[in-house]
């Protein structure tokens, strides 16, 4: 069995969502990071937002955003209802695991890509 979430904390502090996995791993996702990787058809089409906004201060252009709530989708995914009303993205567990931004997982991904 691939790892599945055991515990999901929507408001883990510092604008992050935390997932504790069944294999003991813990992933901390900044809200913006997760939202910019929304897997819904519209967002996939639009692509990720530009990393650098004009003027070099992207943070100024961003409105605060957080998950208002989340629901499990069957046995395989999480649906996040964002505070701005967007909720079309269904984040499959395996995809969430692949998105884990911790140094260890990042390094693993880079090795695999290389």
């Amino acid at each position, binding site marked *: 069995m691939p790892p599945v979430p*055991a515990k*999901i904390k929507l408001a883990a502090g510092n604008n992050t969502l935390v997932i504790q996995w069944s294999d003991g791993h813990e992933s901390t996702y900044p809200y913006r990071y997760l939202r910019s990787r929304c897997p819904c058809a519209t967002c996939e089409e639009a692509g990720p937002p530009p990393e650098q906004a004009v003027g070099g201060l992207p943070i100024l252009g961003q409105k605060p955003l957080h998950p208002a709530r989340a629901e*499990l989708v*069957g*046995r395989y*995914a999480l649906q996040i209802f964002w505070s701005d009303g967007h909720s079309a993205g269904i984040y499959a567990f395996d995809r969430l695991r692949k998105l884990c931004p911790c140094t260890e997982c990042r390094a693993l991904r880079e090795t695999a890509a290389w």
Partner: protein
Amino acid sequence: MSSGISPQDVVKALRAVKDPDLGRDIVTLGFVKDLEVGDNRVSFTLELTTPACPVRDQLLAQARAAVAALGVSNVDVRMAAQAPQRPDGHSLIPRVKNTVAVASGKGGVGKSTVAANLAVALQRAGAKVGLMDTDVYGPSVPVLMGGSDAPRVVEGKIEPPIEYGVKIISMGYFLPKDEAVIWRGPMLHKTIHQFLGDVRWGELDYLLMDLPPGTGDIQLSLSQTIPLTGAVIVSTPQDLALTVAAKAIAMFQKLNVPILGIIENMSYYLCPQCGHREEIFGHGGAREAAQKFGFPFLGEVPLDPSIRVHSDNGKPVALDDSTAYGKAFQTVAGALAAQVSVANFQTAQDISIE
């Protein structure tokens, strides 16, 4: 002499009895209840995880022998069965303990016939069973189960018709025979949601879901709406059917739905005239596929006109376990129930969101 036997001695003896499917002893599994130890007398309840347990008699005999070996002459074992409540039950169907999708990929392999007979076989074993016909375009369960009354709606909830002790819902009940459902995806999704949440299922040990062929809207809606306990794959033995079955397996794996096992339908034909066994679609293909994928093989069901005649008349062959076909379905149902218990121990998800 048995006055020296303590409850601890009995528990220790019973620890030697293992459930072959779950791989643990009956004490650790919590099967032994209400243990009473008296003068040369031991009584307890053996509570199994399914009324359709295929090793029921084996466990009973072994438990008896283990206690008798202590020198107790009067061993009284009561049998009971209680499907455990999973931690990942869903609020739409709070009292349904297990949900099992019966799928195939390819059409025409006998999914609905197998689903109807498994439902009847499980019910006859003593389980509370529901059968949900999710094939909205081609509902066949009302014919197979012989029902004709349209479900009544009481206080906004649908009372499911009960045939042979099985609670049933199907699109076939809501439409005149010659009418067709001509819908796009979103309507199917709504129907699935209603079949789950707006039907008074009550308490069920098993809710079997007869799926349409394919890997489309209905399969996806079902897998997204509730956490399925697992899926059973029905296939005929030939490569063509197994190739498409592999697609259904891939879909369930992607959706993290455990595959409980593979059933081979139309496995062979026995000529009633001469007794010759003809393997029309080949034989053993599904067993090989099960081995290849690493899933349990749940059993084979022969191809026989009597199964077809019984199905068309709305009297599933599983109603009569004195026939070879009735027995075949009973065996498969027992194997399925065992795999559901295994899945409950291994793959139940307990995910908290806060």
